[in-house]
């Protein structure tokens, strides 16, 4: 959904990256806009932006799903222990392999 810059509210999510006149990226897709972002967008003369859910990233979604499955087994473990952290990473990699 295209929204004019003067109609933006803090908290709105960018569906695509916003670039300035020279092509410089001002904010990435998925950014939740803060009042500071709104000031920057106005300062760069951005007239409108695309608001909504960013396009789905299947790899990212698989990773998040695998982390969720594995995290259930790690309840009660000392999460900041180096061995527990290493086992968590290994378990997520294994889960991603198991469910391609």
């Amino acid at each position: 959904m295209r929204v004019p810059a003067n109609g933006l509210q803090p908290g709105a999510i960018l569906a695509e990256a916003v670039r300035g006149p020279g092509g410089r990226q001002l904010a990435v897709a998925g950014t939740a806009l803060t009042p500071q972002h709104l000031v920057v967008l106005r300062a760069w003369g951005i007239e409108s932006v695309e608001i909504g859910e960013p396009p789905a990233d299947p790899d990212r979604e698989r990773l998040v799903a695998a982390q969720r499955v594995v995290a259930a087994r790690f309840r009660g473990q000392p999460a900041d222990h180096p061995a527990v952290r290493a086992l968590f990473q290994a378990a997520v990699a294994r889960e991603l392999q198991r469910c391609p």
Partner: protein
Amino acid sequence: MPVTPTIDGILAAAGELQALPDSWQHLDAVLARSAATTAHIAEAIAQDPGLSMRLLRLANSPMFGLSQRIERLSQAVHLIGTRQLRELALAVSVVDLVGRSGRRDRVASYLRHSTSVGLCARAIASRRREANIERFFVAGLLHDIGRFVLELAEPDLVADQQTQARQRAVPIETIETASLGFDHAAIGGALLRRWNLPSTLCEPVAWHHLPSSAPSQRVETATVHLASVAAELLGLDDGEAVSTPLDQSAYDLVGLDAADLIGAVSEAASALAETLTVLVGTAA
């Protein structure tokens, strides 16, 4: 009101599991004689053809990674060593007993879990350059025998405990201790003492949830604790249960860094399917 089961009562309901098979006891007696020669030992093993065949297959499996193929028991005695072969014969004997005692699906998932922990304990011990790493394999393989025996004796109680553990997202031993006053580790320790096994096996089994409480076999117990936590967290047994929390002092006593631990459990993971096939005689 139902009577709360005691450890003795649970063991009394364990059927065939109450004693180790005669073939293993015979072999153990031969090995205990200091004058036993390679030929004597090979002959004692050969009296049980099923045991002989599986020991040879185990000796030729990726667990050992030997460069030459072992065709004869006498070769296995030479290459693997008498003490280690005794441990492996014990492992095979117990797997047989378990296989004959329970429902097929329960046996399969129990042995998958046990073998994964046995292989992890063995791989950790190997990285610590321990002598006779097969005793770590057997300790890991036996660590949850109390859980198997408890389920044989009290299937409804165990099903209820598993539901509670899942709902409350706590390790199963927390629920067992609350309802029985002891956990499956204590049952396993009592069974192994009944089998007259040494403290190097009894203690890691009895104390694998509380490794710092082991009276004398601290390293063995810490290794089995670490192996069971790592195998469960990594999901080697395909289980979803919440694991015992990692014990910091056991981890320090074992002394592997995180990378070495991951190396050891990865090694165990890659040997799991074939080891299970050899031990159980079915694909994992």
